[in-house]
């Protein structure tokens, strides 16, 4: 069973809560995904509209654990302040730490990320850093006190899958005991299965489910893919090779010799 910050999780599929066609579809998708962890955010609230209150009621009714993010933060200061605000509202020490460094790719600012991770860990936060597959950055984040890493598969919302297989394999091999969650960029259940087959512990999906023609059906498809990928990993996949190896035994083949 996956365990993150002493919290056991049965499901290896974490689900984002943004961009669904309606709150009802979001709720149905969370159930179809059998997700135990749902990411949430903070946004400016109007005193007249109070849009956030209904959303918060919906999430609480789902009975899931929430993972608040610092999406949209471009500086250490913004991210740290947002984390404080999230901890108060959501009553959790978990924070998905995002410090965005570049707007076209939403690539993390890994320098700001490690600094913010150090500050927040020292203050008792349990940090889930949204990072790249860079090994040195990963090492720095672990030194800063992170006990889980969330490398991107590809830019957020791009649906490209695992963009840098070599780098991600290296990350997995380099930190065998660290929970690694592929966050961002997956578009298809097969991408999620591949991540689990490679030994990643879980995936976080948002856009690929929320923007599918049928988000609920897609959530179920991702759940199946994640289970299949985890089972395949546990079963020990064969190594790929360049040349054919007959699967049918050749001893006793008719008409030979």
């Amino acid at each position, binding site marked *: 069973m996956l365990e993150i910050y002493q919290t056991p999780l049965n499901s290896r599929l974490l689900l984002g809560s943004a961009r669904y066609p309606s709150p009802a579809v979001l709720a149905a998708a969370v159930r179809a995904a059998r997700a135990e962890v749902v990411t949430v955010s903070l946004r400016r609230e109007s*005193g007249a509209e109070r849009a956030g209150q209904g959303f*918060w009621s919906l999430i609480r009714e789902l009975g899931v654990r929430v993972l608040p993010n610092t999406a949209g933060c471009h500086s250490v200061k913004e991210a740290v302040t947002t984390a404080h605000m999230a901890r108060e509202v959501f009553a959790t020490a978990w924070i998905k730490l995002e410090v965005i460094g570049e707007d076209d790719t939403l690539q993390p600012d890994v320098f700001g990320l490690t600094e913010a991770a150090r500050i927040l860990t020292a203050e008792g936060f349990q940090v889930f850093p949204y990072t790249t597959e860079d090994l040195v950055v990963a090492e720095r984040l672990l030194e800063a006190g992170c006990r889980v890493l969330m490398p991107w598969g590809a830019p957020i919302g791009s649906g490209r899958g695992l963009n840098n297989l070599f780098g991600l394999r290296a990350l997995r091999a380099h930190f065998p005991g660290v929970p690694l969650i592929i966050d961002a960029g997956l578009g298809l259940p097969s991408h999620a299965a591949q991540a689990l087959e490679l030994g990643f512990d879980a995936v976080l999906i948002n856009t690929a489910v929320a923007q599918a023609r049928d988000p609920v059906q897609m959530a179920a498809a991702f759940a199946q893919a994640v289970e299949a990928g985890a089972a395949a990993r546990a079963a020990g996949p064969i190594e790929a090779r360049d040349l054919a190896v007959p699967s049918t035994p050749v001893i006793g083949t008719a008409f030979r010799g």
Partner: protein
Amino acid sequence: MKIQVNGAWREVSAAQLAAALADLGYGESVVTTAVNGEFVAVQAREQILLRDGDSVEVLAPMQGG
């Protein structure tokens, strides 16, 4: 006094943050606040006195990825 609330200028009469939030219609809403970029915990809202030109962020739970 004029303060910025979520980036928009607003006129408020109450100086105390908790009272200003009530004036602005937040009532019992689940919100979290920052003043001039610094987090202000819910327990501290009654001690914080706003000044003309202050910038207040009022955030609430929202969808996120």
